[in-house]
């Protein structure tokens, strides 16, 4: 069963690895990392519109209506579900000690923290990590491949987009709750995520000459940094 599953994942990822390996290993100028820039720019423009008309107003209303304490509890509960998948990815990346720490976080916060509403593990010294399947693929040596802007979800890459699909499928809420509850969870995660960006977006507005390439270059650097847990080897152009 597990063997079959992993073979299916491997097969699904094969064309991806060819694409990623072919394009990203050179690490050359921007255009190499973004060969489908015109397409990406149009999705980016769509996202900006969708954000201005729907996502941002909803997130702003959420921040205005819901008290900070409650928002913090919602954020904690969402983050707690993420810890389980983070632990699994730590293990897949060959970091059993971190996996144990994140599993401990999940166990403590789910029980004593009442389904993750309170983060009891952080004050105990178990720091939050974020690992996803895109990072795991990166750790396994898969280059990020061309930059890819996903509708609604925004900056990604061919590798991270595939990882994102696996993250989505692996979400434990999808396997334990009803479809309606699961959709509500996804919706809450999107609103919570957008609300947390409200304070930083102004920073990007002020800092960027071109928002699109600023976000792209920042995203690609940050992902590379995450794959190597904050210690990436020097890049080729240094």
């Amino acid at each position: 069963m597990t063997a079959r599953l992993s073979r299916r994942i491997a097969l699904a990822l094969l064309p991806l690895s060819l694409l990623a390996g072919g394009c990203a290993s050179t690490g050359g100028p921007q255009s190499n990392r973004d060969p489908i820039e015109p397409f990406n720019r149009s999705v980016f423009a769509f996202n900006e519109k969708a954000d201005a008309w729907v996502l941002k107003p909803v997130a702003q209303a959420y921040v205005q209506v819901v008290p900070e304490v409650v928002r913090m509890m919602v954020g904690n509960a969402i983050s707690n579900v993420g810890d389980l998948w983070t632990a699994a990815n730590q293990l897949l990346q060959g970091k059993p000690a971190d996996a144990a720490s994140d599993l401990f976080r999940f166990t403590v916060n789910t029980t004593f923290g009442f389904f993750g509403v309170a983060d009891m593990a952080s004050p105990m010294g178990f720091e939050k990590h974020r690992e996803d399947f895109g990072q795991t693929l990166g750790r396994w040596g898969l280059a990020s491949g061309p930059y890819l802007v996903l509708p609604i979800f925004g900056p990604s890459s061919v590798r991270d987009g595939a990882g994102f699909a696996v993250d989505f499928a692996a979400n434990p809420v999808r396997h334990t709750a009803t479809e309606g509850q699961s959709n509500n969870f996804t919706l809450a995660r999107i609103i919570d995520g957008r609300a947390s960006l409200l304070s930083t977006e102004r920073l990007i507005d002020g800092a960027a000459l071109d928002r699109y390439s600023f976000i792209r270059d920042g995203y690609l650097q940050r992902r590379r940094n995450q794959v190597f847990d904050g210690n990436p080897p020097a890049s080729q152009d240094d």
Partner: protein
Amino acid sequence: MNTAYRWVLAATLAITTAFAAAVPARAADAPDALIKRLSNEVIERIKVDKDIQSGDFKKLSDFVDATVMPHVNFQRMTALAVGRNWRSATPEQQKQLMTEFRSLLLRTYSGALGSVKDQSVRMKPLRADAADTEVIVRSEVVPPRGEPIQLDYRLEKANDGWKIYDVNVLGVWLVETYRGQFAQEVAARGVDGLIKSLSDKNKSFDPARKP
């Protein structure tokens, strides 16, 4: 409450002054010691200065000039960000680029300083040789709750101590990010076009504007 606040204020001022007084004696700080001292100095100052917290650009600018800039090689930072076009720029263009870039960075960050509250700085072990003239200092800003924020610095050894020439926030290097932005602008509109974009950006960006 009021008395408590005054006491905290006085204590912080005393600590800051103690730091300031200790500066000349430590002119030859090791790079990580320098970053630690500067980080603490900046956090302490922002914590007590309501004007800077609310985005008073003039005050922040003066503070940064007095405290941080002596430890930054801003010319190198700008030159690296502008990339190969730097050498073809005239000295006057280079000067303008530095002025506008500095202003852009200050304006960007001045809006974010209101959120500095109970952060502390944690230094990561320095992996460098005594003979090194270029090092990376790694640190983390630890908020009261939530994840630590990665903050790294590239420093070079100058005659009068270590100088910062690049900063990394959450894995994103400042110079590398702006190298892309600047190259794109220079390719489309030349060096003067870049200077103009930066200056327009600075004029239009109002740090007091609320999100």
